[in-house]
């Protein structure tokens, strides 16, 4: 029978192809995940699971915190942490969207995402988030669940679909060898300084997350805070608030880096410009991380931070869980662990990130330790950062501002 080996040779690749296709089409059946309200069931269900946490991986201090602080605590609860480092949150959201498009309703690869308001809104649009669990976490008692910025993320109701774990506060980073405190007291004085020192200030082009914040900071300054734009998107309010705003941004272009002919594309790019001495000031969402940059010599010793008189922008970072997550219970445990006051303290010490919990709800010892964390002279204290913090706008405003900025400033 000379044809038999041929058939046998064919059988293997076909079987492989068939299995591959089958794996694409269907998904493994999962046991129903434990109810978040029954925490002991969650804990026992999570034992032995591996949680795939998709998060921004470009911050060494934060990565060290995850490896040294979060992973061992999860291991104690029988959960293995797999940190999946990504450069853009949209990548993780796209992965879940792709799974949804392929009909994968369970056994998904993404268990938890460190998400921001805009990407959260994308997921709400496609209905991919698991909801109604965040308030059930035991450590949620430390979080001020009634705060506006915790109840709604960039204007999108949170509805227990995500759990707060840190707070981002914006600040202006500047080199005090080039600018005086008077130059950074307000946006006006900053722009006046830029005019006499052309090329030494710029911001990343939106839709970069931080570039978008920088543009909003300038807008807040023009309209005296975000109060006229509070709530859902309103065309009339938007038109009124931005009257003349983009013209003003075009007018300051000659004072910007490269005469505003172009803008850096990312926060990483603008930090490099500052480290290289090409620019002397920039806006950041992570003022705490600046201390490390100064210590390791990337930034000059004379680096300082300021909050312009119009206030700084503040928002919460959240952990969200996709509906099709394979290890939902482990993801609950991760979200809960991140809200643990001790973990929050370690996060603050390691990265300078402002805690996602309300510190006044923790024990007095913890509060004192928070207050005693030594501060680099280059960074602002928690009090200074939160003194005049302003809320974010609804994500529909953000998208509109980014689009209009692109059309009326970048492409002009």
């Amino acid at each position: 029978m000379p044809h038999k080996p041929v058939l046998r040779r064919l059988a293997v690749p076909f079987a492989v192809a068939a299995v591959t296709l089958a794996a694409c089409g269907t998904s493994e059946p999962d046991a129903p995940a434990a109810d978040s309200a029954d925490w002991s069931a969650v804990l026992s269900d999570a034992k032995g699971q591996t949680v795939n946490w998709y998060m921004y991986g470009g911050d060494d201090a934060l990565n060290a915190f995850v490896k040294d602080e979060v992973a061992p605590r999860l291991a104690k609860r029988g959960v293995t942490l797999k940190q999946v480092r990504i450069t853009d949150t949209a990548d993780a959201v796209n992965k879940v969207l792709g799974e949804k498009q392929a009909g994968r309703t369970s056994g998904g690869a993404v268990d938890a995402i460190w998400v921001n308001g805009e990407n959260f809104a994308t997921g709400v649009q496609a209905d991919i988030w698991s909801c109604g669990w965040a308030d059930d976490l035991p450590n949620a008692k430390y979080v001020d669940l009634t705060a506006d910025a915790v109840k709604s993320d960039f204007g999108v109701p949170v509805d227990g679909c995500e759990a707060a774990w840190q707070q981002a506060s914006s600040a202006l980073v500047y080199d005090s060898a080039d600018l005086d405190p008077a130059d950074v007291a307000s946006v006006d004085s900053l722009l006046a300084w830029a005019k006499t020192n052309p090329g030494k200030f710029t911001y990343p082009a939106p839709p970069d997350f931080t570039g978008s914040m920088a543009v909003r900071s300038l807008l807040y300054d023009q309209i005296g805070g975000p109060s006229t734009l509070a709530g859902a998107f309103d065309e009339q309010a938007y038109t009124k608030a931005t009257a003349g705003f983009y013209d003003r941004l075009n007018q300051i272009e000659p004072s910007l880096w490269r005469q505003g002919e172009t803008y850096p594309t990312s926060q990483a790019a603008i930090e490099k410009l500052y480290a290289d001495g090409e620019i002397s000031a920039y806006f950041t969402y992570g003022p705490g991380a600046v201390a490390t940059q100064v210590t390791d010599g990337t930034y000059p010793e004379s680096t300082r931070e300021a909050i312009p008189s119009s206030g700084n922008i503040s928002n919460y970072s959240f952990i969200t869980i996709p509906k099709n997550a394979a290890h939902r219970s482990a993801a609950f445990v991760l979200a809960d662990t991140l809200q643990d006051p001790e973990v929050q303290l370690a996060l603050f010490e390691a990265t300078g990130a402002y805690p996602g919990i309300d510190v006044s709800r923790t024990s007095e010892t913890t509060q004192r330790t928070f207050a005693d964390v030594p501060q680099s002279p280059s960074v602002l204290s928690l009090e200074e950062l939160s003194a005049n913090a302003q809320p974010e706008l609804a994500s529909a405003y953000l998208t509109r501002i980014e689009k209009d900025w692109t059309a009326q400033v970048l492409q002009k």
Partner: protein
Amino acid sequence: MTTLSVVTGSPAVRRALLLAPAMLVIGVFFVGGFAQAIAQSLGHQPLLGGGRWSLDAYRVAADDPAVRSSIALTLRIGILSTVLATTLGVGFALVVRRLGAGRAWLTRLFQGTLAVPHLVGALCIALLLSPSGMTSRTAHAVGLVDDAQQFPALTQDGFGWGIIAEYVWKETPFIAVIALAAMSVNLQRLEDVSRTLGAAPWQRLRHVTLPMLSAPVGAAALLVLAFTMGSYEVPVLLGRPFPAPLSVVTYQTFNDTDLTSRPEAMAIAVLLATLTTMIAAGYLVVTQLARRRHA
């Protein structure tokens, strides 16, 4: 004899069956992916529950200033990088072939650069050519410019010099390696024959060497063109946010937090694929005509 043995015994059918697994993969991932892109560019929106068939996405893309100013830039970067890399690569290969002992060493150097990822190449170009980079600092140190800011902008520039420099730097050795491999003993013999028949060096190059190189180098140049027109990370690191090549515009539109932008992203992707295919097809037609005339 069963029917099955007759069927599997035929060489054509056997070949087809053996190729089937590979074709299946190409079919699913390439053809399937492209078909999905076309479907989504025509309004199919699986994430938002269906959608409506229309050419709206193409209309939006045609009106988008980001896309309009991108087409010329994409073509400029793709064609200029390919032409420069091909010319330089063939030139280097011809020079290297003349070298005696240095040939093996230089060939290895060319091959070495193939292993460098484009991302690393782009970072090197940034370190070299950016306003705070080595070239500008050197120019400042030797007094060519008074201030680093006076140095001409070679990265994030409007023309795309930084991007082109990276592609030429990376792709020239690739072309050179292909050309060197094509300069076989056979070519040497043909050249020797033409020399004994009295052909001058320039004639040998024009009528023997270059025609022999044209097929493999042409194929390699097509690869370079397709790559440089579709690559993302180099222009994102060395280019401007506006105008940006189509690959960057596609990705940015795809990553828009508003999912209703996805059809436009897919429309731009289809446009990019069509542009690249058209240039490649045009090149093939021209070379076929030239070859026929030559023959």
